[in-house]
């Protein structure tokens, strides 16, 4: 299992190094083992450099940059060992317009192989979906499902980004 962990880690790291610049439109990032001699206990550090910035640990990154970095990691693992489906609950919440666009593009691409179920308040993410389910509580405390046509999602609690400079 030590061997499998190391192999999986290295495969994921390669993917992560490809996916990060796709989502960030540049820059680079990589995973590092905190203790490469102890594969059973080692932790996983993330260092990242958004385009034009300095390479460092993720702690100084912004809320949105951190979230997008974590998404890159999740997508990297997912592409190494895809599951039949992937559920993402409001992962786009801290992202701006441009990042949401690149995020959506990758989800669409990966959805050719796996089913994606995405919970969102974001209008552009909704526009990217093939099907939309609206969840409502007409009767307080009681959830019901309604099918939402894409041009109706105005009434679904959506929030929409405006284009970034």
């Amino acid at each position, binding site marked *: 299992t030590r061997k499998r962990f190391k192999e999986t880690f290295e495969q994921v790291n390669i993917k992560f190094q490809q996916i990060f610049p796709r989502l960030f439109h540049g820059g680079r990032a990589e995973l590092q083992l905190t203790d490469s001699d102890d594969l059973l206990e080692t932790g996983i550090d993330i260092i990242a450099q958004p385009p034009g910035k300095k390479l460092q640990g993720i702690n100084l990154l912004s809320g949105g940059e951190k979230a997008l970095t*974590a998404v890159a990691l999740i997508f990297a693992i997912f592409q190494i060992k895809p599951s039949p489906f992937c559920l993402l609950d409001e992962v786009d919440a801290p992202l701006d317009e441009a990042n949401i666009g690149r995020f959506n593009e990758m989800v669409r691409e990966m959805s050719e192989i796996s089913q994606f179920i995405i919970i969102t308040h974001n209008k552009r993410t909704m526009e990217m979906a093939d099907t939309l389910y609206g969840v409502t509580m007409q009767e*307080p*405390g009681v959830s019901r499902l309604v099918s939402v046509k894409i041009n109706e999602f105005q009434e679904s609690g959506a929030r929409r980004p405006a284009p970034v400079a």
Partner: protein
Amino acid sequence: MKIKRLEIIGFKSFVDKVVLDFQQGVTGVVGPNGCGKSNIVDAIRWVMGEQNARSLRGKSMEDVIFGGSETRKPHGMAEVSLIFDNEDGLAPPAFAEYAEIMVTRRLYRSGESDYLLNKTPCRLLDIAELFMDTGVGRRAYSIIEQGKIGFILNAKPEDRRFLIEEAA
């Protein structure tokens, strides 16, 4: 093994039966704050075998049973069924003749709890094995619940291993 359908009744805010048909591609789930979207994620995690009530935001597992509202009394049982499509015949040999595989979990207020495969009682172990064999079970990175991104970012490096371990 693709998800075909999810059926929820008595689970959290879904006191009335709700059926979600899952299509290929991307399914978006939308609605105002508190309407039940994340409860759908919880339902999927629960039927897939989640044992930790706190990771479903509850204090005890009984919290997943509909607890009542202004207009409704509490429910006695929560039941979630996940129906998989076996048209591609990739499920384990035991399921070779089934076009659909239904996994059901029930919990009664008494604490009594059932697992069923195609409506036949089974053990949690049978469900866990099915999920493992079909690669459906890798929840650590294929189910990203609300707040999990923050958890991954704030975690100590040792507490991130589980993501790689699940894929290994």
